[in-house]
């Protein structure tokens, strides 16, 4: 017997009361292996305006390319204190910042490896469903062979590429609509 899925609804504007108590901005406490990264994700609507009441979650592998999850049964190191989960609401500038380590490469089911990437969920008032996207690191040589990027129209691939600013922060604008609409995935 099949049970009908519970439909999605918007997070609405007033989630502040609960979920701010369980924010995870710092994913990698001292001692976690890997290259330290700072992420700055901004959320924009179809007109380019910031979406000040959006919430971003991220999920990533550790620097060895291992997910901290029972489905990942590969014999790679797990880091104590590194779950790989982050959740932050955007600030008044529409920006959510995370501190982490650069994820390692994870396998593609048909063989080969994916390029380093961070999985992203965006929630907002006016969004009836979670939208999912990915962050890739601009300039990483592995991007050229990434099987997910290859699924994307080359003209839109740049919407998934974070760029490093002059302070060393990886910046990725997420456009919910408009001419620069980000590529979203049915995952």
């Amino acid at each position, binding site marked *: 017997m099949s049970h009908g899925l519970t439909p999605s*609804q918007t997070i609405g504007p007033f989630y502040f009361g609960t979920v701010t108590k369980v924010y995870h901005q710092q994913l990698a406490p001292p001692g976690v292996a890997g290259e330290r990264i700072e992420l700055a994700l901004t959320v924009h609507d179809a007109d380019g305006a910031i979406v000040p009441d959006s919430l971003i979650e991220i999920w990533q592998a550790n620097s060895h390319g291992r997910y901290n999850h029972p489905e990942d049964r590969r014999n790679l190191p797990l880091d104590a204190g590194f779950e790989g989960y982050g959740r932050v609401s955007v600030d008044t500038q529409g920006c959510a910042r995370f501190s982490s380590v650069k994820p390692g490469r994870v396998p593609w089911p048909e063989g080969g490896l994916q390029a380093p990437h961070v999985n992203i969920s965006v929630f907002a008032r006016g969004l009836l469903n979670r939208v999912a996207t990915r962050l890739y690191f601009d300039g990483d040589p592995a991007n050229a062979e990434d099987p997910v990027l290859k699924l994307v129209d080359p003209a839109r691939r740049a919407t998934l590429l974070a760029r490093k600013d002059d302070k060393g922060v990886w910046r990725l604008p997420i456009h919910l609509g408009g001419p620069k609409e980000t590529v979203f995935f049915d995952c």
Partner: protein
Amino acid sequence: MSKEIYRRAPADAHPPNLSPEYKSTVSRAPRQPAIVLPHTLSEITGPLLATERLDALENDLTQQRSGEPLGERIVVHGRVLDQDGKPVPKAIVEIWQCNAAGRYHHPGDQHDAPLDPNFYGGGRVRADEDGRYQFITIKPGAYPWKNHHNAWRPAHIHFSLFGPAFATRLITQMYFPNDPLLGFDPIYNSVPEGARHRLQSSFDMEATRPEWALAYKFDIVLRGRNATPMEG
């Protein structure tokens, strides 16, 4: 390894992102179709928050302040299941809601209704091995919003679930049975007609606590896995 580990949602399960009656979807709904991703480790893993420590009273929203909140005390309970009816064990369930007067404990809520110093409106619990969860709270009020003239949200409780994977993440809202405002609410009615009723809790006489609280039951169904011909 199969590339379709979790079942894809049928087209009539979730609301379309663009639901113009809900006005703020117009500038926020993506217009390009989402690209279907094969399921890789990135999608079939996800935060389990296994080491997250929850306080025992986090599921009792009436015990989070020095006094008891005003309003009708209720029990909200149910199970977290997958599409095969199998329990999703140990899932964290988060809720948030307004108070009995229809006001959120949130700086952005300007509704002309009183705040209740004894009601914060947020709770969490970890479901048990059978996916069972329970909250004690007060019945939230209806509140007006600016979507259209004389727009009112039916009483609702926001729910957030992680489930076992990035692919199973869900945020939704639970409504109360036969609320007359449901027929006027663009957010509830954004859901395809055949699936809307799944967002209504049911009155649960059996779970009421005599001389203390009425009860509502709300089961949540997350994506299930495809049958695996072979486990790799």
